[in-house]
């Protein structure tokens, strides 16, 4: 293709997105669009399945039947999200196996929030409330993103994430209506998850690299700082309702701008965890690698069996 031809394809492509039409896997797309989407969607898929681990950690210890069943179902939903997202990503010409390899080698990233440990039961509440809450803020705009399979996957995912968030908040509510010890457990969880949740909305706009391109492709509608503000404004009243204190001495309602002012985020910690040195980075990746490696013989058996069945069918067809 000549350069002029590519230019004209690109112009048509941009116009299509500007008209709010979806890009489908068979459509022509710039290589950069494909690569960016593979990176983002696979990263999102990895976040779903790595995200199963911190909460999966509490399934066997959940304090009641009701909570155990709800937690199992939630973690299973995350597996489902992973599945939709891997499928969406596969339409861009990469296999699930390749994506796993990239995760296991450290080439592909996943959300840093899952590199913190779940120490107490209250963490199940805090994660649902704050982490799923921040995820929704990040993801709702993606329901109308330009790449069709991603947008459709996100519509399903977001519905379930809102349910998770309510469920998490409800866990917090039970704790806050409970004994002194339970309230302390809830406050401690909020203290530990608050700042990492704010970091989930991404680096400040000044430090963020891909924003402009992402806006054009509708991978982003608002900047990280706008999303973070939205999250804080929505969450502070919820914490008040629980009777919990947000661990930020500088948090204060600002009448003039109609939103909260808040304290300085520890970006050193953010980058430390992103670069692989958070408290649980190694454990999370080890768990994923182990599950994959220990499952190799099972996957091989399944494909060997499927191949044998196919041969048998062929033989039967020949004999008839």
């Amino acid at each position, binding site marked *: 293709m000549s350069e002029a031809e590519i230019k004209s394809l690109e112009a048509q492509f941009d116009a299509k997105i500007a008209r709010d039409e979806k890009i489908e896997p068979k459509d022509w797309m710039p290589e950069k669009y494909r690569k960016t989407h593979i990176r983002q969607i696979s990263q999102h898929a990895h976040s779903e*399945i790595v995200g*199963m*681990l911190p909460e*999966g950690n509490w*399934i*066997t*210890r*959940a*304090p*009641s*039947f*009701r*909570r*155990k*069943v709800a937690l*199992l*179902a939630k*973690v*299973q939903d995350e*597996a*489902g999200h*992973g*599945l939709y997202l*891997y499928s969406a990503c596969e339409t861009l010409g990469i296999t699930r196996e390749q994506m796993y390899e990239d995760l296991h080698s450290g080439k592909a990233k996943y959300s840093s929030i899952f590199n913190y440990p779940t120490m107490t*039961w209250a963490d199940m509440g805090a994660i649902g409330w704050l982490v799923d809450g921040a995820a929704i803020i990040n993801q709702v705009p993606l329901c109308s993103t330009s790449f069709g399979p991603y947008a459709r996957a996100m519509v399903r995912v977001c519905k379930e994430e809102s349910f998770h968030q309510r469920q998490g908040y409800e*866990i917090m509510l*039970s*704790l806050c*209506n*409970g*004994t002194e*010890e*339970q309230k302390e457990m809830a406050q401690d969880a909020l203290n530990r998850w608050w700042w990492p949740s704010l970091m989930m909305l991404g680096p400040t706009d000044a430090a963020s690299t891909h924003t402009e391109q992402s806006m054009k492709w509708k991978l982003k509608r608002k900047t990280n700082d706008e999303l973070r503000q939205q999250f804080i404004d929505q969450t502070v009243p919820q914490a008040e309702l629980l009777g919990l204190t947000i661990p930020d001495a500088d948090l204060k309602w600002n009448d003039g701008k109609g939103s909260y002012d808040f304290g300085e985020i520890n970006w050193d910690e953010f980058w430390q965890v992103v670069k692989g040195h958070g408290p649980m980075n190694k454990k999370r990746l080890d*768990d994923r690698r*182990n*599950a*994959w490696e*220990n*499952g*190799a*013989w*099972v*996957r*091989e*058996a*399944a494909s*060997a*069996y*499927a191949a*044998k069945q196919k041969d048998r069918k062929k033989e039967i067809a020949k004999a008839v």
Partner: protein
Amino acid sequence: MKQPIKELNPKFLESTQNKEHLINYLLGVADNYLILGQRLGELCGHGPNLEPDIALTNISLDMLGQVRSFYQYIAQLRGDKSTEDDIAFLRKEREYKNVLLLEQPNTDFGYVIVRQFFFDVYNKMFLNALQQSADETLRALAFKGIKEASYHERFSGDWLKRLGDGTEESRSRVQEAVNDLWIYTDELFQTTTADDAMIEAGVAPDMSAFRDTYYEKVKELLTIATLDIPEVAYFQKGGKEGLHSEHMGFILTEMQYMQRAYPDSKW
């Protein structure tokens, strides 16, 4: 061989001993679901691929759903303030009546599938027969559970075939699981005093009548899966009488942790 259902004499449960027997019988049934559900819950997020991970979690959820109905019925029979959670989380080792098979660890995916299959074949037959119970609640629970039990049996049976007739490695691994777990199958057909009393009353099906069919079915599938049928001189039993393996204490330690650490709290 379906016989017309004879309804339970309404006076039956007025006898303390009958009630006691029924409760113990129900615990024997329900604890199987609890312990298997708990074991499967350990696997969530660690499966060999997303699809079987999701499927095993589904089975775990079905087990927990089933056990809750049974415990709720027990709580109702007891007529005190006990809840499903007290029954699940606050007993001591010797008071759990699950069979030994289900407390066996998730050694690898082969063990998980074989344990599941050995139980599923039994469970489907059991729920089928329980639909003829003289007890109305149990008939309803059996009816509710049978569809998912058939699905579980198909799932574990299909995987057993894949693993047995897959690669050399998978065959030898799953054969080892079959050999190791075979000794626990007979206990499924053992009865306790409470069981005998409930069989006598028409509340419980007499599962010993299904023993041969059970082994026929299991052996048939093992053969299709190109696996050898183990020959053993002795079977293990004890779980139904509260005589558990060393695994049981650890299962309970984890499962009961919150209820023990924070007594009388609401969650």
